[in-house]
């Protein structure tokens, strides 16, 4: 099924845009903005608002129609989790039944990144939004290393603790810093021969499963994740590996 943006009529292609141009505010600037939107490939464009930002910049808001469409059936996307997540109790029962030991999970916010709220939400006892964190899970031993942890230190600790899974949080993504940092982690893990025995999982507001997989992680989790989501992924994935 080909899908196109929808405003008030199927396939009308309606899109709202806003942007600034380094030109002084004027009628000509508006026309330039309109032409630019057309150049972007839109079929029709109304510059509905223009305002000077300074003597040399102008801000525009536009409504335009695009002819672009996407074949929805061909969009490839796998969620980290195929089904609904298990509850905390179910996760524990699952571990007890299948592994007969506690699983070890090490987490950190790595590199320069000091945004711990996300990884804390997943790991800390108290959790997030009334969803308990992994520290609360009886059958999981969770170690939260906190902020600005170098990749090397994280892997060393994982090795030391014989971790089953490593959880990485990346929040600062400007200039794609996270991509470099995450790639480095995977490379290090491979170099140290740890990759096979570890689940590598990354999360953060700009992270998706797709990106994570591309970077060599086992899974990626975005905004709105709760501990049980990661926990479910971990136990299912480990079970899958074990039973191979």
């Amino acid at each position, binding site marked *: 099924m080909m899908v196109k943006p*929808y*405003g*008030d*009529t*199927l396939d009308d292609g309606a899109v709202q845009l806003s942007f600034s141009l380094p030109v002084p505010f004027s009628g000509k600037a508006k026309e330039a903005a309109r032409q630019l939107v057309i150049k972007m490939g839109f079929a029709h464009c*109304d*510059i*509905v*608002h223009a305002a000077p930002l300074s003597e040399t910049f102008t801000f525009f*808001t536009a409504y335009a129609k695009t002819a672009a469409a996407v074949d929805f059936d061909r969009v490839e996307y796998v969620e980290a989790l195929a089904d609904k997540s298990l509850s905390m109790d179910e996760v524990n029962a699952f571990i007890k039944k299948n592994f007969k030991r506690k699983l070890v999970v090490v987490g950190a916010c790595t590199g320069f990144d000091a945004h711990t709220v996300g990884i804390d939400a997943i790991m800390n006892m108290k959790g997030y939004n009334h969803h308990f964190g992994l520290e609360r899970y009886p059958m999981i031993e969770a170690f939260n290393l906190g902020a600005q942890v170098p990749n090397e230190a994280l892997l060393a600790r994982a090795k030391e603790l014989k971790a089953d899974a490593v959880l990485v949080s990346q929040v600062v993504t400007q200039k794609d810093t996270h991509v470099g940092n995450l790639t480095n982690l995977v490379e290090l893990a491979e170099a140290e021969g740890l990759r096979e025995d570890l689940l590598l999982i990354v999360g953060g507001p700009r992270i998706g499963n797709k990106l994570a997989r591309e970077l060599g992680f086992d899974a990626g989790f975005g905004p709105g994740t709760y501990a049980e989501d990661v926990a479910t992924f971990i136990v299912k994935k480990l079970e899958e590996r074990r039973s191979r």
Partner: protein
Amino acid sequence: MKDKHTPKTAGKVVYKLGLSKPLIAVARRRAAAIAGPVQDFIAGHTTVAVERATLRLLGADGANADGVPVPNLIAQSLRERIGSGLSQHYLSALLREGKTPAQLNEAVAAGYDLSKVPLADKKSLQVKARELAGWMSKRIRANVAHRDSKLKAFAANVKSPMLYVIVATGNIYEDVKQAQAAALQGADIVAVIRTTAQSLLDYVPYGATTQGFGGTYATQENFRIMRAALDEVAEKEKRYIRLVNYCSGLCMPEIAAMGALERLDMMLNDSMYGILFRDINMYRTFVDQNFSRMINAAADIIINTGEDNYLTTSDAVENADTVLASQFINERFALQAGMPKRLMGLGHAFEMDPELKNGFLLELAQAQMAREIFPEHPLKYMPPTKFMTGDVFKGLAMNTLFNFASKATGQGIHLLGMLTEAIHTPYLQDRYLAIQNARYVMNSMADFADEVEFKKNGLIVRRARQVLSEAADLLGQVEKLGLFGAIEQGLFAEVKRPKNGGKGFDGVAEKSPDYWNPVEDLLKKQLGIRG
């Protein structure tokens, strides 16, 4: 019908302004004095639209091959008989041909000419009328009962104010998608905006329609389609979703009839809007509004009056008094049509210039004032429109403050402002953004009205008092001139309308001594209207 409902639709009233009760009473008295002579005129007259509406309530429906509706075909052929009431001819034909209304309608559509049919005897007419009006009445009562039962069943999910959105794609099927999505997102009320200029058509188009400019035709079939769509979501959401249309323009009474039959829940309906903003003849409008309000009252349909329109052409600071004066007049005419207060969605709007210092405080004053003066009425509060521009981000901020003001003053019916107001009729996502904004704001400052007081003799309180006193003065002036004269002289909305000018004047007729309208008689009885 008895006034059994608690006025759930009116927000909570917390009195803060110390408005003068005697002055409010004076204003009401003046409104009564103003509406009195007009009501006398109404009592002595009918219009072609009233007659068509009556026919519709007795069963007339359908259209001929050219799309001319059956009620119009009948009215055309009996043009000269309007003053006597057209229903007797329809009933006579039914009796004579032994047909059901549906069969007769087909015949009329095919060319059967009612003017050729001699009148049946009074007695048979009355029996037949009682039968058909009884059906009509039963259907309307069933609608009311259904609505009431759903409102009761879903009472837990009622919001205050109720969130009202419009759909206006021009295509009823596209409208359905948009309306259902809005309802799922939290809209309580959906209005299908009419296509540009339908108000000036002297007939109501027939059937489902897919072509309109800036709105969708109001037709009985479109009503039915949207009603079913909203009922479907209501069950899912456990929230009764109200449907609105425009009981306004040259076909005001007919739309009322269609709405009553199809269980609409609200109608835009104003006693003077058509005169002022659509240049419809004033006599025509006054007679039509009265009959349409009787129907709305019988069907338990909330009306939304059009005072907001004053502020789209006049300045909201200078002309606040005209809004209040019109509310008093609308209230009075509604009362005279047998309508309980809980059905009177008196209109006003958040239309102060956003550049005005303390404009928001003046808005609070105006909204709170309306609330206190009309405590049982489910006030209809309109969003900023005139000062909305293509700057959607600024527009969103204006709507945010509007949502705040509405909740802060306990409004009843809250029309959601669209960030794209100055650009296009709402896109699917525009409505979503509006609903989420209102839900966020109104939850975040939910009890503001209870928690906050206005400074004694402060700007807010003084402003409200001033507007009330100006409105009372204005009503005094109108009383002196008489309403017809006042409109002629341009006291409302800065437009002047001659008494015998405007559209639809030729559709007004004096009731002749033999005038008979069984529907009107029944409605009057039901609503307890004398005379």
